[in-house]
């Protein structure tokens, strides 16, 4: 057919002859240990680079909006800001905002990257790489957690001089932040697997994560909520994450710290099992 002849690719040039005296010895395949560390590190680096490439949106943007929230609350308090009550409102909100931006970025970094890869067909590059499903999931989770922490650090650093808010127990604060970030990164992985289009992503974060986070003691103590909600939020892991982080930063918390850490650890483990299983099955990846 003439049409095909017109569009046919030019014939490939013949393979270049090997230079004389150089025998092409086939390299043996690279031996991988039980865990393909290099593959995991590469994937983490790629995901992190992708997140940081858009640093005005992924790092500066969240920092600015968190500071705006805080500024707006401070201004709305007006003359009441100087009172003990006003002071309490601001010290309550600030640590929550830091952890909130960490968690949102951890989750979104992974969800966005996964849905983008799926829609653009680039997911094949990941699936074809010699990575086990658990390695794939672990790399995404680690990258998401790191992305969130990278985002949260400037916010925290900006808040310390503004509010004089030095963490009471810095190591615990770091541990809670890391665990919460990991939890949300796994959630983000799950959301990214499930989502088929951008609308789904927007729905998950706009109609599920954001409302739950806003009401899980981000801006006001859970006790301030009306009757059924104040106990309902105690079923949300985000409540324990925010509460434990606030406890580590300011020293005041509503739930016992061991309980918060247990809930966070348990939720993370469950999410890990779910992600691992779904990636192994190829749910929404290979089908």
């Amino acid at each position: 057919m003439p049409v095909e002849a017109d569009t046919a690719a030019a014939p490939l040039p013949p393979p270049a002859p090997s230079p004389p005296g150089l025998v092409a010895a086939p390299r043996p395949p690279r031996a991988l240990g039980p865990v393909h560390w290099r593959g995991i590190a590469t994937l983490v680096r790629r995901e992190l680079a992708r997140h940081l490439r858009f640093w005005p949106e992924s790092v500066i943007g969240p920092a600015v909006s968190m500071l705006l929230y805080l500024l707006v609350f401070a201004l709305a308090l007006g003359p009441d800001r100087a009172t003990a009550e006003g002071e309490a409102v601001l010290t309550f909100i600030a640590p929550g905002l830091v952890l909130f931006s960490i968690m949102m970025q951890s989750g979104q970094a992974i969800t966005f990257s996964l849905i983008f890869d799926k829609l653009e067909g680039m997911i094949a590059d990941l699936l074809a790489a010699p990575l086990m499903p658990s390695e794939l999931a672990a790399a995404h989770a680690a990258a998401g957690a790191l992305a969130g922490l990278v985002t949260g650090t400037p916010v925290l650093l900006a808040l310390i001089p503004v509010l004089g808010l030095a963490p009471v127990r810095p190591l615990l604060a770091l541990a809670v932040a890391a665990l919460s970030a990991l939890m949300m990164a796994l959630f983000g992985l799950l959301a990214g697997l499930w989502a088929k289009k951008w609308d789904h992503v927007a729905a998950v974060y706009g109609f599920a994560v954001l409302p739950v986070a806003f009401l899980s003691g981000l801006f006001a103590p859970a006790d301030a909520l009306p009757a059924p909600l104040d106990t309902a939020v105690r079923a949300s892991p985000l409540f324990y994450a925010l509460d434990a982080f606030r406890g580590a930063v300011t020293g005041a918390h509503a739930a016992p710290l061991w309980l918060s850490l247990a809930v966070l650890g348990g939720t993370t483990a469950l999410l890990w099992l779910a992600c691992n299983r779904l990636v192994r099955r190829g749910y929404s990846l290979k089908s």
Partner: protein
Amino acid sequence: MVAALRRCGWIMTGMQPRPPGIGPGVTGPRITGAVNWIGLWTLYRKEVERFLKVVMQTIAAPVVTTLLFFAVFSLALGGIVRTAGSVPFLVFLAPGLTMMAMLQNAFANTSSSVLIAKVQGNIVDVLMPPLSSVELAVGWVGGGITRGLLVGAATLLAIRVFVPFGLHAPLFVLYHAVAATMMLALIGVAGGIWAEKFDHVAAVTNFVVTPLAFLSGTFYTIDRLPEDWQVIAHVNPFFYTIDGFRYGFIGQSDGTLGIGLAVMAAVNIALWVLVLRMLATGYKLKA
């Protein structure tokens, strides 16, 4: 109106003398009058259908977010800040938050519409048809105003369920709603034409539109600001959008009402001139 426009176009086609040699049943080129009503209406409809197609993201999500803000502010500050001026704090907050959502969505609609068309290359589909720069701008801006007003109406109705507020001056509400959404829709068109990638529009949203909408008296009366900030507030058009809109509901304003009306008109005229000039010269669109 649709019927009228259709009829208008049909009549024009019908009165058209056929060029020699073209038999009955074949129409000649349509002659458009001073205004290409069919083209304008089609562009407007395309703009509206564009955002209605993802109504969950473009209408429902902003309404939910605004309601969340409302809930959070009443929970966190309800105990301390009871009144703003002489009205209850929540009644004060309702119109301000509504206007904030309207501003953000009017901007988001036009900026994303223009930028996505540019990035995807289908901008030629609106540059090629027989539409003048005025018609182009009116179609785009009309879409932005429509989305802003829809978000505003839905938000007001939703808040009205929780907090009863009256209507003091409906004409003020209408004028400021239309003028404010028009202002942001025009800024969105200018921004979308100027931007070359999504980062640029995200930067304008994160660092200009959101801070201005947040800090221009949505959440507090201006007298709560430090002295020199009050001066800035009084030259900030965003302040007049919120202040005038709120006056329509609560009958109390921070600024001078007449100045507000004049500033809105002047800013809109200046923006129209800018946008029409950009379109007429083909800045970053045809050049």
